């Protein structure tokens, strides 16, 4: 499900400040970050499967929660390292605002999902909540770790889709991947196949996860291509 740029509701914060760009990171670092995120995902699915013996279909709510819990530290700790304004912003602060981003992102994501037709009954509450937690980790949290409250950067990356530098490519592509994947994941829901996975939010979560995974790979590719292009330009 799609909810780009709900971020607009956020405080109309800083003027386009003359901030120092986020630190450049090497291709191998990008690879490590993406790998860790992917491994985290695989780990959480494995944990759900073997320890709790559940999966997305049998217990979507708990599975999504496990994914969120395991991804949360990975994402926040990893992206906190690439915060902007290193001088003025400590690592702890970046982690702090990443944690702050979790509920905000969850709220925005769930609002978007409801606008697009997610059920709002009480029995679906836990599912919607856990799904939007996961969505928040894929979309808003990395950005809030890196960008903080720099409204201009948020706008540039998400609305105008003009990321600048490797880390912003990661943020932008992964958020878009998760959102668009989820949007497509909603398609099979009305079909009358009567499969258990057609329930909200299972197919949407599958869409989100696959969109996110594709984006992980694609962002790596983008970063490499971008780098090569810059090299060529320099030459």
């Amino acid at each position, binding site marked *: 499900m*799609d*909810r*780009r*740029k*709900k*971020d*607009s*509701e956020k405080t109309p914060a800083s003027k386009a400040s003359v901030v120092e760009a986020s630190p450049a990171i090497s291709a191998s670092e990008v690879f490590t970050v993406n790998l860790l995120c992917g491994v985290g995902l695989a780990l959480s699915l494995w944990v759900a499967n073997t320890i709790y013996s559940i999966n997305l279909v049998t217990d979507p709510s708990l599975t999504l929660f496990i994914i969120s819990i395991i991804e949360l530290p990975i994402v926040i700790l990893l992206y906190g390292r690439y915060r902007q304004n290193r001088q003025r912003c400590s690592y702890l602060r970046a982690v702090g605002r990443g944690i702050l981003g979790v509920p905000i992102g969850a709220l925005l994501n769930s609002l*978007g999902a*409801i*606008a*697009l*037709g997610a*059920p709002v*009954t*009480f*029995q679906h509450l836990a599912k919607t909540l856990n799904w939007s937690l996961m969505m928040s980790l894929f979309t808003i949290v990395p950005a809030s770790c890196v960008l903080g409250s720099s409204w201009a950067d948020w*706008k540039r990356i*998400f*609305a*105008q889709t003009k990321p600048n530098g490797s880390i912003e490519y990661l943020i932008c592509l992964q958020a878009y991947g998760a959102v668009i994947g989820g*949007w497509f994941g*909603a398609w099979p829901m*009305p*079909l*009358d196949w009567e499969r258990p996975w057609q329930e909200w939010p299972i197919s949407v979560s599958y869409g989100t996860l696959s969109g996110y995974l594709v984006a992980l790979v694609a962002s790596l590719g983008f970063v490499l291509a971008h780098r090569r292009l810059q090299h060529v330009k320099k030459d």
Partner: protein
Amino acid sequence: MEEQRRKSGRWGYIWPMWMTLLLHLLAIILFTTGFLLTRTELPYYSHCTDLSNSPCFPPSPNNNGSCWTKPSINRLVIIVLDALRFDFVAPSTFFAESKPWMDKLHVLNNMSSSRPSSARIFKAIADPPTTSLQRLKGLTTGGLPTFVDVGNSFGAPAIVEDNFINQLFQNGKKVVMMGDDTWTQLFPHHFERSYPYPSFNVKDLDTVDNGCIDHLFPSLYEDDWDVLIAHFLGVDHAGHIFGVDSTPMIEKLEQYNNHLERVIEVLENQSGPGGLHENTLLVVMGDHGQTLNGDHGGGSAEEVCVTNMVETAIFAMSFQEPLSSVPPDFDSCTCQTDLDGKNVCISSMQQLDFAVTMSALLGIPFPYGSIGRINPELYALGAGSWKFDASQKLPEVDIWMKNYANALCINTWQVKRYIDAYSASSAVGFSHDDLSRIASVYAQAEDHWLHSTKKLLLDRHNDSDVLVPELKRQIDAYFKFLTTVAELARSKWTEFDLKMMGTGIGIMLISLIFQLYAILRPTKQHDVNLSSSSGNSSIITSSIFTIFLLAIHSFSLLSNSYILEEGKVVNFLLSTSGIVALRQSVIKEKLLIESIGFLLLSTLCRFAIEVGLSKQAATSAFMKDYSSWIANIASDLLVWDYASKVIPMLVLILLAFWLYKATRCGFFDWPRKYVILGTILSYMLIIVHWITDSDGFGVALTAESIGRNYIPRIVYAIALGQLFLLSFGQLFKRNCLDCKTNLVAKTTAMLSAWSPTVILLSGKQGPMIAFASIVGGYCIMRLDNIEESNKNRPGRSFSIMQWSLFATCLFFCSGHWCAFDGLRYGAAFIGFEEFSLVRQAILLAIDTFGFSIILPVFGLPFLVVTKYQNNLGKHLLFTQLSQMYTTYGLITAVISTFTILCVTIHRRHLMVWGLFAPKFVFDVFQLILTDILICLASIYYFDQGDDDLELKSSDC
């Protein structure tokens, strides 16, 4: 070329639209003739003498009056309870859950449990289409009426095919009819006496029933009839108005129970030897079922609803000494204990079999076109009357079986005769393979008959040991044949004329190309003007996105699940477009409120659509989920009840106030000012109407009934007057103002002229939806303007797509869906009590498409107007407007084309008559209506003549 266009005046802008209308009409007429099938009705009739051609035994000559079969009953009382659900009749123990409407007709249960061999309940499976007219036709002809006849349902034409009633008439049986006047329309000359009552006023629960009762009981004591038909409509009407789970429905059922008790008592009292009803069979039956909210006619594809519509009940009871028992082999019944602990057995039968079984019982020739088979259980109920001669040493049951085998022999022969005659006379009959398959099954059965059974039967001295197995085999062979034919007829009856359909689709595609050309043509011509914008990538992005949304919407129509949930699909797309618009407005950092508002509005629409869907499938899990919290707020609080009455009026006052403010602005000149004042007056009248209509305000008006009818009529009259004023004002006016303001004034006046009627017909939800459409329209309009880098850009397809999606959403929001049971028949009777086809059809169309077609089409100029500055000149403005209208028409046409493709692909689908065909009819109607309105709107909006003013200004 420019000059030429200018010379040709407004026709230069308009002709593509008329051309499109013509193309669409042609395409749809061609396609429809190919798709909506007509079964060939054969002009042949069965006659008594025909039987000599069959291999079967004629009835013994001493039985005077008998013709084909040995008559077993003399008189027949048929009581039809319209829309009788199976669970009204069957004991609640047959169902998983006991519901309040079950067990109300307990007299039928008691009878069938206390006298299992002379009274019996059947579950009758009706074939679609399940409207009363179609079912009566099917019941009496024993055939499968086709979907096309649904269209004739409002003007029920007489049945020309051979049928049960006709056979009764031909063979000197006297038929008395009372109740639903559809019968007299179907059989204008066949009744000895008839007491018809109008069936179309659904609000009236009692007139037909009371009329029935008044004539039923006296008639039961008379001896001047052979068949009596009483058709009650109360249950159908109660279902349409209140739904199944409602007090009026339960009261109706209880009332029927009392009547039926009395009927049985009267018949019972006279059933002694020599009595009036010695050999009478009582049949209480439904013509079709209904869903929980009282609909039938074939819309929702949910399994539950289909079974509810298709399953009805037949209760038959004979007042003769019963036969000891039916041979158990034919019993297809399931037995359960009822609430009193007695055993009740219920058999199952096809409604198709009704006509032939009744004919066999009465001994008249079977209707020529019947493809049913004689139902053994029902046939056995009449067996008691045969005076079994003691000379035969066979037990009663075996004699009955002998008779039954002979009746089946006639039955089989008659069906085969019909199939042969049909394939000979119809151009596209059954396929060769199928015919030869039928022929071989028939040959088998006949062989057996001629070579073994007949001989055995002729030989009077056989033991039952020899005879019975042989007869059983014979009956099985006949069953096999009759089942094969019925199956074949069901699956293959409908013949599609693929050539016609293909031509229709081809013309439709041509019209799409033509429309596309008409859209792109002005852009090319104004390349000079627009060159600055042609490189604008955002236009390309937005058109791609438009095409993407349109493609999703169109392709979704190819699947039945998406058609069922079209409301949600459209809303999903609308919200998506809203999110994209939000992104756009974040980039531009303006109009944030509008885009968020639009998103909120589409979220609200989504809830409204879900409530609508819940009405469509009241049985679905939705109600269980939502009723908890909706009901908590809604039902308990008096305040809420009060608010639901007051809020629409407040919103209406707000709308009136807006209009009043608009008139103060001063750009409306005389005719339009009066039009708008008229609208405000209409709004006030509507409020008065609602106050007098509801009792919640303690306004006890003595002249309530007058107000109820006259106020809506005044509103309609004002609306007509306004439309006349606007179109005549058009003739006299020379535009004095600049064309943009002029266009705004015209559009506002037109919309305000339509709005009171639409709001009044939509009921209390009307003002809210009107409010929502104004807000939504305003948001789309503003958001369209978000990139004002270049004022001369061609119309942005994206906003038109949003406009069209929003219009479709409003269709679903206002509680409609694409099925005949989605029509709000109640709306057709606002202001009028009596039925008149044209008038009610127009009101129904305005109610159904008011918010989704009429208002959006007439409101479309707003999208153009906001984009232009005053000085831009008329020519450019009108080019844009015509382009916009063509784009809107194109979007509708693409969607309709996909619906047409969909019904073509799914023409053999199980749901084709239940789901796809109604959707097709709705979409085609929408397309034609949109085209016509676009043509009318273009005449109205495009001014005649050219003005020099724009020549000066068009130098930009």
